[in-house]
């Protein structure tokens, strides 16, 4: 520190005096233009502060003279994308669902828009893959409460199910057979046994035989003679492997005793017509469309 220069004996260059395991750092000077670039960067940054948003203030930030905003960029991009979409949306507005399904460019646009609208509006209940949950139908499979044609799906989405806001909403009322004292507890158990038989599950033949009589009296008008269901009244098929609320004995008894009343909003009042069409085509494409 007394100002003694430590000169490296091989290169003849002064060292910084720092040493690691016998290796010393040479104190080679930087080229002067390097310094200029440093100052140029400093000057540039000052210009940048003035031209672009830079400094946080107490409420907000310095806007910069150029008025640049990344939010405005996004808004412009969204507007441009909407403009591009407008062409297709105009076509979707006039095209029938069947035309959309069969024209590949319209189909592609409808499926993309439908998937997006589904994730925003429908996935909360039906799941992001439309796989459904207990009480919320799986839209991938081939059983439909209210019909699986394009027109049926569109109608269900537009008016919803059992809601007060739309008088055209899909509506049906299954009685709560036990609570409303239409059937006694043993009768309910018998008819549940018959439903197990209809869907090909293990059952008690005697009780199922008694249940068949009850079924013919109380259930057949909606669910059909062989339990095939009726989409006109939202009566599910009872003779297959799919269940909205599980197909075990206890759940069936519960359903018969207290009824089920799934609901869905009338999306026609929330979404525009083109989006509803896109949703209908998308749901129809998931695999169960008829």
């Amino acid at each position, binding site marked *: 520190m*007394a100002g003694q220069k430590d000169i490296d004996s091989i290169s003849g260059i002064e060292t910084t005096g720092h040493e690691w395991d016998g290796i010393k750092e040479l104190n080679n000077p930087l080229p002067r233009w*390097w310094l200029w670039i440093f100052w140029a960067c400093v000057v540039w940054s000052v210009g940048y502060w003035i031209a672009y948003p830079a400094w946080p203030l107490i409420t907000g930030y310095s806007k910069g003279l150029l008025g640049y905003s990344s939010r405005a960029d996004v808004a412009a991009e969204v507007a441009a994308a909407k403009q591009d979409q407008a062409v297709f949306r105009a076509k979707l507005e006039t095209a029938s669902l069947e035309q959309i399904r069969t024209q590949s460019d319209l189909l592609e646009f409808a499926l993309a828009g439908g998937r997006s609208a589904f994730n925003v509006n429908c996935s909360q209940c039906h799941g992001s893959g*439309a796989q459904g949950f207990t009480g919320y139908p*799986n839209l*991938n*499979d081939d059983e439909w409460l209210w019909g699986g044609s394009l027109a049926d799906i569109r109608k269900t989405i537009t008016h919803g199910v059992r809601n007060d806001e739309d008088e055209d909403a899909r509506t049906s009322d299954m009685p709560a057979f036990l609570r409303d004292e239409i059937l006694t507890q043993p009768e309910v158990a018998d008819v549940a046994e018959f439903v197990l038989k209809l869907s090909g599950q293990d059952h008690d033949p005697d009780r199922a035989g008694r249940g068949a009589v009850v079924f013919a009296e109380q259930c057949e008008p909606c669910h059909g003679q062989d339990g095939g269901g009726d989409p006109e009244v939202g009566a599910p098929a009872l003779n297959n492997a799919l269940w909205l609320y599980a197909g075990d004995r206890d759940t069936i008894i519960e359903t018969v005793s207290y009824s089920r009343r799934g609901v869905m909003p009338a999306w026609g009042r929330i979404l525009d017509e083109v989006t509803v069409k896109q949703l209908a085509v998308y749901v129809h494409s998931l695999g169960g469309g008829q």
Partner: protein
Amino acid sequence: MNHQGPTPKPVGDIDRFDVKPVNKKGNRSLYKPRKRIHPKRIKGAFRNFKWLVMAVTLGIYYLTPWIRWDRGPGAPDQAVLIDFPARRFYFFFIEIWPQEIYFIAGLLILAGIGLFLVTSLFGRAWCGYSCPQTVWVDLFLVVERAIEGDRSARIRLDQAPMNASKAAKRIAKHAIWLLIAAGTGGAWIFYYADAPTLAIDLVTWKAPPVAYITVAVLTFTTYTLGALMREQVCTYMCPWPRIQGAMMDEESLTVTYRADRGEPRKPFRKGETWENRGDCIDCNACVVVCPMGIDIRDGQQFECITCSLCIDACDEVMNRIGRPRGLIDYDSLANAERRAQGRTGAIRFFRLRTLIYLAILALVGGVMLTALLTRSDTQINVLRDRNPLFTRLSDGSVRNGYTFKVLNKARAQRTFVISADGIDGITLGLVGSDNLNDNTPYVTVKPDRVQSFRLLVTVPGGSLSDESHDIRFILEDINTGKTATYDSIFRGPE
């Protein structure tokens, strides 16, 4: 540590401190001013070779985009084209898709290992002959020499006061430099669009802004790095001088001053004998031609780009004084060692290092060549739905959904039929077709396109023994019968 400092020494009545000012003016400079280098012109074998390399590399750079290559209607007819909007890279008969970016990766590996091999054999041959920085600096020097004269004239001009003649020379020089720089940037963009069309758009101000911006940026960098900064780029900015040390060994040939022959150096006068002295006459011809401003006689140093111009300079002097050429020559450290021990020098090209580099080159090159030759014009990618994993249908069967992507690399529309096997009773359906269970999904793919389809695969409930089954998709061109396959899995209930 002595906290009281050095002991004062008495000088007369008052003690004198043994101290030096830490920030003495002479010690203060942390920044080194640049000293201009004025390399002198030299003729010789290496200079000629460098002219040749310059002509070839510049020729390739400027002319390549203008080569035409017929690919049929609807396809670009430019031999080398990087088409970003269409996501295609054309190289003569090869057309690379983004999905085949590994060809580019392989090419970069080949270039990297090739550089290692050349460096381990011939030192920094890349730096000395073919690096764009070297080639363009050479080109800019030609202009400077033509306008301002050779070394001594340039030094005189630098020192002369500004007058009309000096200003005219300076303006002419920088104007031509800028033109060359603009031409460099201008040529670059032709690799990214149809060259003739873009050239016309460029001069009629109809080209896209990015074209002008690219030209401007490359003009600026070429002018700054090539014309103004020159050797500063190699010495201070380029990482290669630091990396090269790891590629070279004592057998690598590099530009070397043969100290065993040259020393002791001494000026030579006619009539003197060559006894008891070296061949170096200390004429500094090697220093005066050096574009890096170094003295090769100091030994290997990282500033040296091995441009070999000092070899030409020294050989010319040796011719004139009648001594053997090659006092400065391509030589290795090992040879210098051998000569010092009185043995003869030898060149060893085949060493473990070079053999390993060669083996890697052969391996990567072979893999790439095989991939290129067996490249199919049809490719499929199949993505299985994750949500839902599977769907149970009313009759108890199980269905999986797949996104089926077909890459049609041919220049014609083609129709394929998709089939699958692996599970008994497997049926296929295509979303969008009239019958989801027709089991013969035909797909038509437009020329040179990727198209995506939704494929539904259904199997009877009883045929699944496990939650996961291997299945194989087969895509068959209905005209040629050529197939492409993709292995995937089918998920069922646990």
